[in-house]
C-alpha cells in the first residue's frame, strides 16, 4: 500500500483513464448518456484522496522527491520524464484536485441539458491530466510538454460551443497567444541547455539541479546573456497567466462555459505561470534585472486590469479582468522576492475566484444565459445563496480583515514596501479592486430586476459547491496567517533563505484595507441603493479616459491591426511571389524551349535547295571553325 501511495505519478493517470473510457465509451455508444460526470468526478476524488494520503505519508520534514525515466534518447541528449514533488508542488496539487472536484460537481448541473455533455467531461478529464502532470513534472522539458497540453485543453474547452463563431475565434486566439509564450519558453530552455550542455549530473533540465545549472549558465553566458534567457523563460508565464503584452486572450476566453472559466481561467491554468516562476526561482533570483522586470510586469498588469474592470458590463468579463489583476499581484510578489506571499495569494485567490465565477455561472444559469449586468439587478430576492456566497467572495477579494484576501494580498503589498512605486500601485489597485467588485455586486444583486426573464435559484448540485468553496475563501487566509498559533503558510512553503522578512506587517495592511473600504464606499454611492453619483455623468466628464478603458487600452485593436496590416500582407506578398516569380521562371524556361523549337521548325521550309544550302553552309562553317580551333 505504501509504495502504491509513493508513486505519485498515478494521480494524473486517473483522469487520463477517465478520458479514455469516456471517449471510447461514447464513440462506441456503450456508455450511458450522462455518465461522464460520475467518471471524472470519481477520478478527481481519487486524486484528492491519494494526494492527502501522500501528504500524510510524506513525513515530518517533507523532503522533495524526484524520480524520472528516459523518455526520448538521441545522440548525446536524453530527455526524460518523471515526477518531482516539493512544498510548492504539493500546494498546487491540493488546489487543483480540490477546486476541480467541486467545479466538476457543479458542471453536472450546469451542463446537464447541453448535447455535448460527455464531450465536455472528456475535455475536463484531459485538462485535469495535463494540469496535474504539469504540477508533478520533474524537469523543465516535461513541464514544457504539459504546458502546451494545458494550452490545448484550454483551446478545446474555450471552443466547446464551436458552432458559435466568436467562441471558435476566441479559442484560436487563446491558443495562438499561448503558442507565442511557448515559443519564448522553448527558446529560453534551448539557451539554458546550450550553456549548461554537458554539465547536468542527473537527467537534463531537472529541477533538483536547477540552482547549480543557474550558476553554470550565469558563468558561461555572462550576466546579459543570462538575463535574456531568464526573460525568455518568463515569456511563458506572461502568456499563460495573461500578463500585459499577451493578456487579451483571457477576456475572450469567457466565451467558454462558465465552469471552464472558473476552473481554468481563474484557479488552475492561469496559476501555472506563477508556478513556473516558482519552480524556476533559482534562475530568476540570480539576475536582479529579471526580478525587477517580473515585478513591474506584474504591477502594471494588476493596475491596468483593475482600471479596465471598472468599465465592464459583462459579469464574466469583469471577473476575468479581476483575475488578471490578482495574477498581476502574484507575479509582482514573485518579482519582489515574496515567494511565499505570492503562492499564498495564489491559493486563496484560487478558492474565492472559483467561487465568484461559479456564482456568476448560477446567475447566468438563473437568468437564462443573460450575462449583461445592466439587464440584471435585485437578484438578492431570487437567489439568496448565490448572492450570499458572491458577497463572501467579494469581501474576500477586496481584502477586508477576516477574509483570506486580506492576509494574502496585503501581505504582498506589505512585502512591496521596499519598492515604493510598486507599493503605491498595489495599494491603488486594491482600492480599484474593491470598487469594481462591489460595483458588480450591487449591479447584479441590488436594485430592481431590469431583465425580462424570471430568475430562479440554481439547483442543489450547483449551490453546494458554492458553499463548499465559500468556507476556505473566507477562513483559509486567516488560518494560515500564523496568528492562530497554527504554523503559518511560510512554514510550509518558502524558498531557501527568504529574501524578504515576511510575516504580516499590520501597519501596511491597515492602509490597504482602508483603501479597500474607500473603494467599497464609492461603489455603494454609485451603484448601491442611494445612487448619489450617477455613472453616466462620470462617463461624460472623463470621456477620453472612459474611452481608453472601455477599449481595453486598445491592445486588442493593436493586435488585430498588426495581424491585418503586417502579417497578412506579408503572406499575400509571399504567395504572389511564389505564384508569379518562381512559377514564372519555370514557365519561362518551358516557353523559351517551346519558342526555340518553333523557330528551329520554320528552318525546315520544304525547299530541297534551301536544305542543300544549309548542308554546304554547315560544311563551310565547320571548316572555318576547324581551321580556327585546330
Amino acid at each position, binding site marked *: 500500500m505504501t509504495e502504491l501511495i509513493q508513486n505519485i505519478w498515478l494521480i494524473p493517470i486517473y483522469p487520463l483513464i477517465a478520458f479514455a473510457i469516456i471517449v471510447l465509451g461514447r464513440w462506441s455508444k456503450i456508455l450511458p448518456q450522462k455518465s461522464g460526470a460520475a467518471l471524472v468526478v470519481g477520478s478527481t476524488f481519487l486524486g484528492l484522496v491519494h494526494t492527502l494520503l501522500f501528504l500524510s505519508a510524506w513525513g515530518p520534514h517533507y523532503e522533495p522527491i524526484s524520480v524520472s525515466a528516459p523518455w526520448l534518447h538521441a545522440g548525446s541528449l536524453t530527455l526524460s520524464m518523471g515526477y518531482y514533488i516539493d512544498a510548492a508542488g504539493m500546494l498546487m496539487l491540493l488546489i487543483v484536485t480540490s477546486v476541480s472536484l467541486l467545479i466538476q460537481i457543479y458542471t453536472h448541473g450546469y451542463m446537464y441539458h447541453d448535447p455535448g455533455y460527455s464531450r465536455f467531461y472528456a475535455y475536463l478529464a484531459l485538462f485535469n491530466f495535463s494540469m496535474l502532470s504539469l504540477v508533478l513534472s520533474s524537469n523543465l522539458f516535461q513541464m514544457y510538454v504539459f504546458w502546451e497540453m494545458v494550452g490545448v485543453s484550454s483551446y478545446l474547452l474555450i471552443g466547446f460551443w464551436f458552432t458559435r463563431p466568436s467562441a471558435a475565434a476566441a479559442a484560436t486566439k487563446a491558443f495562438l497567444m499561448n503558442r507565442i509564450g511557448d515559443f519564448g519558453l522553448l527558446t529560453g530552455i534551448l539557451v539554458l541547455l546550450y550553456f549548461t550542455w554537458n554539465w547536468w549530473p542527473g537527467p537534463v533540465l531537472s529541477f533538483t539541479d536547477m540552482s547549480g545549472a543557474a550558476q553554470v549558465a550565469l558563468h558561461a553566458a555572462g550576466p546579459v546573456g543570462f538575463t535574456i534567457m531568464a526573460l525568455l523563460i518568463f515569456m511563458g508565464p506572461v502568456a499563460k497567466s495573461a500578463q500585459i503584452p499577451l493578456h487579451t486572450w483571457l477576456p475572450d476566453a469567457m466565451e467558454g462555459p462558465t465552469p471552464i472559466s472558473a476552473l481554468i481561467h481563474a484557479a488552475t491554468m492561469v496559476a501555472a505561470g506563477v508556478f513556473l516562476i516558482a519552480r524556476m526561482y533559482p534562475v530568476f533570483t540570480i539576475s536582479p534585472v529579471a526580478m525587477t522586470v517580473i515585478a513591474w510586469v506584474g504591477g502594471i498588469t494588476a493596475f491596468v486590469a483593475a482600471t479596465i474592470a471598472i468599465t465592464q458590463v459583462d459579469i464574466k468579463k469583469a471577473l476575468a479582468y479581476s483575475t488578471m489583476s490578482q495574477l498581476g499581484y502574484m507575479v509582482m510578489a514573485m518579482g519582489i522576492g515574496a515567494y511565499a506571499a505570492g503562492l499564498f495569494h495564489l491559493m486563496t485567490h484560487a478558492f474565492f475566484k472559483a467561487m465568484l465565477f461559479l456564482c456568476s455561472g448560477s446567475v447566468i444559469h438563473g437568468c437564462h444565459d443573460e450575462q449583461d449586468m445592466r439587464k440584471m439587478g435585485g437578484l438578492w430576492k431570487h437567489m439568496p445563496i448565490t448572492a450570499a456566497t458572491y458577497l463572501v467572495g467579494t469581501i474576500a477579494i477586496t481584502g477586508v480583515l477576516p477574509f483570506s484576501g486580506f492576509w494574502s494580498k496585503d501581505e504582498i503589498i506589505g512585502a512591496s514596501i521596499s519598492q515604493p512605486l510598486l507599493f503605491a500601485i498595489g495599494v491603488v489597485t486594491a482600492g480599484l479592486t474593491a470598487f469594481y467588485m462591489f460595483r458588480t455586486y450591487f449591479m447584479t444583486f441590488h436594485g430592481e430586476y431590469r431583465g425580462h426573464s424570471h430568475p430562479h435559484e440554481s439547483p442543489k448540485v450547483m449551490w453546494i459547491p458554492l458553499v463548499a468553496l465559500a468556507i476556505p475563501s473566507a477562513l483559509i487566509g486567516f488560518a494560515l496567517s500564523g496568528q492562530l498559533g497554527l504554523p503559518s503558510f511560510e512554514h510550509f512553503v518558502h524558498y531557501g533563505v527568504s529574501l524578504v522578512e515576511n510575516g504580516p506587517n499590520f501597519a501596511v495592511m491597515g492602509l490597504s484595507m482602508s483603501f479597500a473600504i474607500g473603494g467599497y464606499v464609492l461603489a455603494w454611492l454609485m451603484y448601491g441603493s442611494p445612487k448619489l453619483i450617477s455613472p453616466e455623468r462620470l462617463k461624460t466628464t472623463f470621456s477620453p479616459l472612459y474611452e481608453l478603458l472601455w477599449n481595453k487600452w486598445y491592445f486588442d485593436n493593436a493586435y488585430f491591426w498588426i495581424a491585418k496590416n503586417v502579417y497578412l500582407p506579408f503572406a499575400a506578398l509571399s504567395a504572389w511571389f511564389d505564384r508569379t516569380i518562381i512559377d514564372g521562371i519555370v514557365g519561362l524556361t518551358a516557353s523559351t524551349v517551346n519558342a526555340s523549337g518553333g523557330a528551329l521548325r520554320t528552318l*525546315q*521550309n*520544304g525547299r530541297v535547295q534551301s536544305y542543300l544550302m544549309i548542308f*554546304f553552309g554547315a560544311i563551310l562553317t565547320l571548316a572555318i571553325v576547324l581551321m580556327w580551333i585546330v
Partner: protein
Amino acid sequence: MFNIGLYHYIALTTILFSIGLYGVLSSRNAIRLLMCIELMLNAVNINLVAFNNYVNMNDLSGQIFSIFILTVSAAEASVGLAILIALYRRRSTADMERFNLLKW
C-alpha cells in the same frame, strides 16, 4: 606554256564541282538540277582519273572507281527522271519552287 600537272586537273575539277553546286542550288527546273548533279559527278571522275594518272600509274583502281561512278550515276539519273515523271504526272510542273508540300 608549262607542263600540264596534277594541279591543273584539281583546279579544273573544283571549278566544275562548284559550277555544278551553284546549278543545283539555284536552278528552278528539276531537269536542270539533275544535269548539274551529273556535272558534279563528272568532276569527281576527272579527279579520280587525274589522281590515277599522276599518283599511282601502275594500279588502275582510280579508273575502275570512275567506271563504277559512271555506271551508278547513270542509274541514279534515270531513277531521278523516273521520279520526276511520276511527280510531274501528279503536279504537272517541274518547277522546284512548287515542291514544298512537306514542310514544318
